[in-house]
């Protein structure tokens, strides 16, 4: 993964985590796998940066956690959105989409009309 991709991933990690937790509670490794799966393998989350991000979101009151055993009998820490987290997910997603559209617009313009030197 290039440095730029890493930076972009870092900047979008919070919004991705909030959106991934929108419908059900999930544990850390599950989130890593989903990021990989839904990005068709393009995004390889530096797994070590996942927990600091989750713990920061929890500290900010956007998510809460609880421990629950899975079928294999091993307890895992699940994260779920709080009411504030749900609102933040909607808001951050809207901002992110607006940002992506803005960047795409500039890039398209650049591609179509190259500036003469």
């Amino acid at each position, binding site marked *: 993964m290039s440095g730029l991709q890493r930076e972009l991933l870092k900047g979008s990690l919070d919004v991705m985590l909030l959106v991934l937790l929108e419908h059900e509670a999930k*544990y*850390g*490794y599950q989130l*890593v*796998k989903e990021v990989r799966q839904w990005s068709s393998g393009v995004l390889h989350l*530096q*797994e*070590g*940066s996942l*927990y*600091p*991000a989750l*713990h*920061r979101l929890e*500290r900010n009151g956007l998510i809460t956690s609880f421990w629950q055993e899975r079928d294999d009998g*091993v*307890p*895992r*820490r699940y994260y779920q959105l709080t009411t504030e987290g749900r609102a933040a997910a909607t808001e951050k997603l809207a901002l992110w989409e607006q940002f992506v559209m803005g960047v795409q617009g500039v890039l398209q313009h650049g591609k179509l009309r190259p500036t003469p030197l």
Partner: protein
Amino acid sequence: MANYDQHPFDRYVQDVMAHLHGLSDEKCAEIQAELRTHLNDAAAELGQHPDDAATQLSVIKRLGSSKQVGRELARSHGIPIAAQGWYIAGGAGALLSAALFTAAIIFLFAGYEEDAVEFFLSISPLALLPVVLVLHRLYRFIDPGWNNATLIVGLVPFGSIAALSLASTVLFVELADVGVLQMSLFTLVGVWLLMIGHLARRAQTIIPPSLTWLGSFVGISWLVLLGSTAVNMVYPQLVGKVSWLLSGNILLLLLIHPLWALWLGSTLLHDGLRRARRA
């Protein structure tokens, strides 16, 4: 990256936890369990036996350096007030020890009575008691067996030397062979310095490596000093032959012990105050 040849997962989790020394035991236990489950899940996904060292190393690589993960986790949890207190208590203890040792040097060169010099020198380890406790607390996730042994080796001499000094110099209690006993206890001070240096270098946090090496050097000096004194006592015929070692070591210790204590004290105090400002 640290050396993870044996039990890579255990070492990795310990190294991450070393950076979370300020958090409560309960919170640390949760983080430890969460990391451990993540590592096992990732190993299981690779389809290899989770105990296989090569599998564990490739999983660790995906998580990133333990130092970075530990620091990011510490940042995401903020700085609890209790952690600042530990640093400040340890720093104050080390600085007090440096001050007492320096006072002993001043009294020695100013020609005061031997008792006064002896009092300051022997009471100096008492001030290091908080340092022993604080470092045990801050390094509690690194090699717990070694850490507990270091605590015992530290508590016995620092506490006993101080008690003996108080008994003989303040309460004027006549204790037979107190010198021999004190000497054996000071030997443990040297051993403690070597043990805590090893632990700190393994943790790669709190005490900078150069300071841990200075501490180990001070520890060796204590051991050499006590060894040469013991040789003098047991084999008086060798007095002339080892006296240079004794005098050289005394001079060296007078210089480096307070320097080490001063450096350690200012490092801990600086860290504690920096954390307090950031909180």
